[in-house]
């Protein structure tokens, strides 16, 4: 029988879904702000505030998204091995590179067995590295454009230097392009999650709601759990607690 193992802690799931909702909201409102069109324009301009409302929703959702990214960043240093920041850099360790190759071979139909892991596979970790970079860039470009509305205060001071390097047109274009990159990622991400769930039978899709995955009894330790980067780190040693084992390693006997 399979074991039900707790993988995704509450902050991981919470920020995941807040990100999903805010990215959807930000993409829809952002696209509208870039290409506004009303099928029924109000007769008098005082009668409608649609563009204003859309922009308000975009700015509000952006700050919710930023709070979520901040919390997730904190959890990358405080959470369990599957939430750890080291998972973003699989190419740094031998196990990580091996697991990346395995995953790539599976996706390109070279190898039949999927890379079964307790957390996420190494190739997924690499894609999240790009996502984190994109998050940083879209937040920065967004704040830079937002700050220009009110050229006083902290956002202006923090971001205005970028317009010495890039024109505002380019910054705005980058903001658009990163949105499309994130939407492309979302498509790939949902498809792969579905595929892995079907192939591995581990309840991956529901794990993002419950936090639990159904792992085989003979589950090997993750590439991230055996990574020297991870095992040598003091935080990891501390986090393992008295049993000295991670959730996936426990009751393996």
């Amino acid at each position, binding site marked *: 029988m399979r074991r039900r193992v707790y993988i995704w802690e509450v902050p991981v799931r919470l920020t995941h879904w807040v990100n999903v909702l805010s990215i959807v909201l930000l993409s829809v409102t952002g696209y509208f702000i870039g290409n506004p069109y009303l099928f029924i324009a109000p007769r008098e301009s005082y009668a*409608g505030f649609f563009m204003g409302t859309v922009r308000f929703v975009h700015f509000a959702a952006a700050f919710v998204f930023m709070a979520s990214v901040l919390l997730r960043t904190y959890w990358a240093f405080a959470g369990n091995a599957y939430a750890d920041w080291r998972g973003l850099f699989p190419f740094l360790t031998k196990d990580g590179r091996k697991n990346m190759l395995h995953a790539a071979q599976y996706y390109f139909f070279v190898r039949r067995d999927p890379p079964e892991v307790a957390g996420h596979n190494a190739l997924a970790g690499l894609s999240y590295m790009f996502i984190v970079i994109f998050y940083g860039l879209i937040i920065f470009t967004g704040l830079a454009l937002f700050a220009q509305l009110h050229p006083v205060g902290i956002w202006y001071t923090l971001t205005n230097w970028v317009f010495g390097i890039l024109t505002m047109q*380019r910054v705005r274009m980058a903001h658009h392009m990163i949105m499309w990159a994130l939407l492309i990622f979302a498509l790939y991400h949902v*498809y792969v999650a579905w595929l892995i769930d079907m192939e591995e039978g581990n309840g991956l899709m529901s794990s993002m709601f419950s936090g639990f995955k159904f792992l085989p*009894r003979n589950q090997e330790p993750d590439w991230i759990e055996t990574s020297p980067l991870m095992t040598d780190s003091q935080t990891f040693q501390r986090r393992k607690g008295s049993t000295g084992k991670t959730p996936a390693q426990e009751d393996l006997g």
Partner: protein
Amino acid sequence: MPADAPSLEARLAARGISRRQFLTFCGVLTATLALPEAYAPKIARALETAPRLPVVWLEFQDCAGNTESFLRASTPTVAAIVLEQISLEYHETIMAPAGRAAEKSLEAVLANTGQPFLAIIEGSIPTKDGGIYCTIGGKTALSIAENVCRKAAATIAVGACAWDGGWPGANPNPTGAVGVKTAVPGLKRLVNMPGCPMNVTNLTAVLAHFLTFKDLPALDQEGRPLFAYGQLIHNNCERRGHFDAGRFVETWGDESHRMGYCLYKMGCKGPQTYSNCPAVGWNDGTSWPIGAGHGCVGCMSPHFWDNTIPVYSRLPNIEGFGVEATADTVGLTALGVVAAGVVVHGVASAIRAKSSPQAAHDGSEVVVQPPTKKG
């Protein structure tokens, strides 16, 4: 202007401008400078009793557009007369002397060290090949600017060109044109008044501020007066209500355009340009570009000729994807390609799952097949 010139009051009266009109003008300047109303009489007194302030107006790589802005009034306005009140000692376009005689009046201003003077610079300064691409009387613009600006009580760089190189400094910038702040680095008392051209109301306000308070107005980090360049055009635009309501011009001359809707979708750069154009207006407040139905081109923003193109669209086109490929068309196409890839991969995976089912991991899973209908 000779020292015994008639007073401002007499000169205004001679042109048929009443004291009421003059005080109204001082009120406008006070409002432009964002000063409390109580300062209007102080500005009026300062303008009336201002000591003779020699001004040297230098033109380098320019089109004399700022001079035109300065002289543009078809009838003598209060502003024009007040600007005459300052003593324009040297201005190539409008001065009577020519050649050596003209250079002499500049030399006289520079030689009189006891008398502070104001330098107004129009046009960019070429720096390539020793600055030979702009010379006046055998001297390069670079050396003239260095000589004059360092001695001036204050320097006002008028127009986009004198600010950051403007048009001559646009890509590929063959002459290495730069603005005053780069050509004469470390200049302490420098006011930048970008724009193509700058707004003469703002120049008058800066001069009035200088005469009233003996100091330059507060500047932003780009060296522009905050009173004139502190707010986005978008924030004070008369079409802003249409923007917030979502009413936009879709094509030139359509019904929305005739109704005066927002020009955002026509590439208006008002949302990214800092200027008091909507409040001050042009040509004595007659109109201004957006008021006349054309989007802002962002002429007051940094390196505007390189930065705000294309003039008539929100986003620049993406190089390498042909004409009119915007970020959104490229993004949408990429999303479509990936979606197609996902479908192909999904079908291939389904076929693989059918032909070679995934082995049970430890032999303990029970795979329950759905009941099949038997006919």
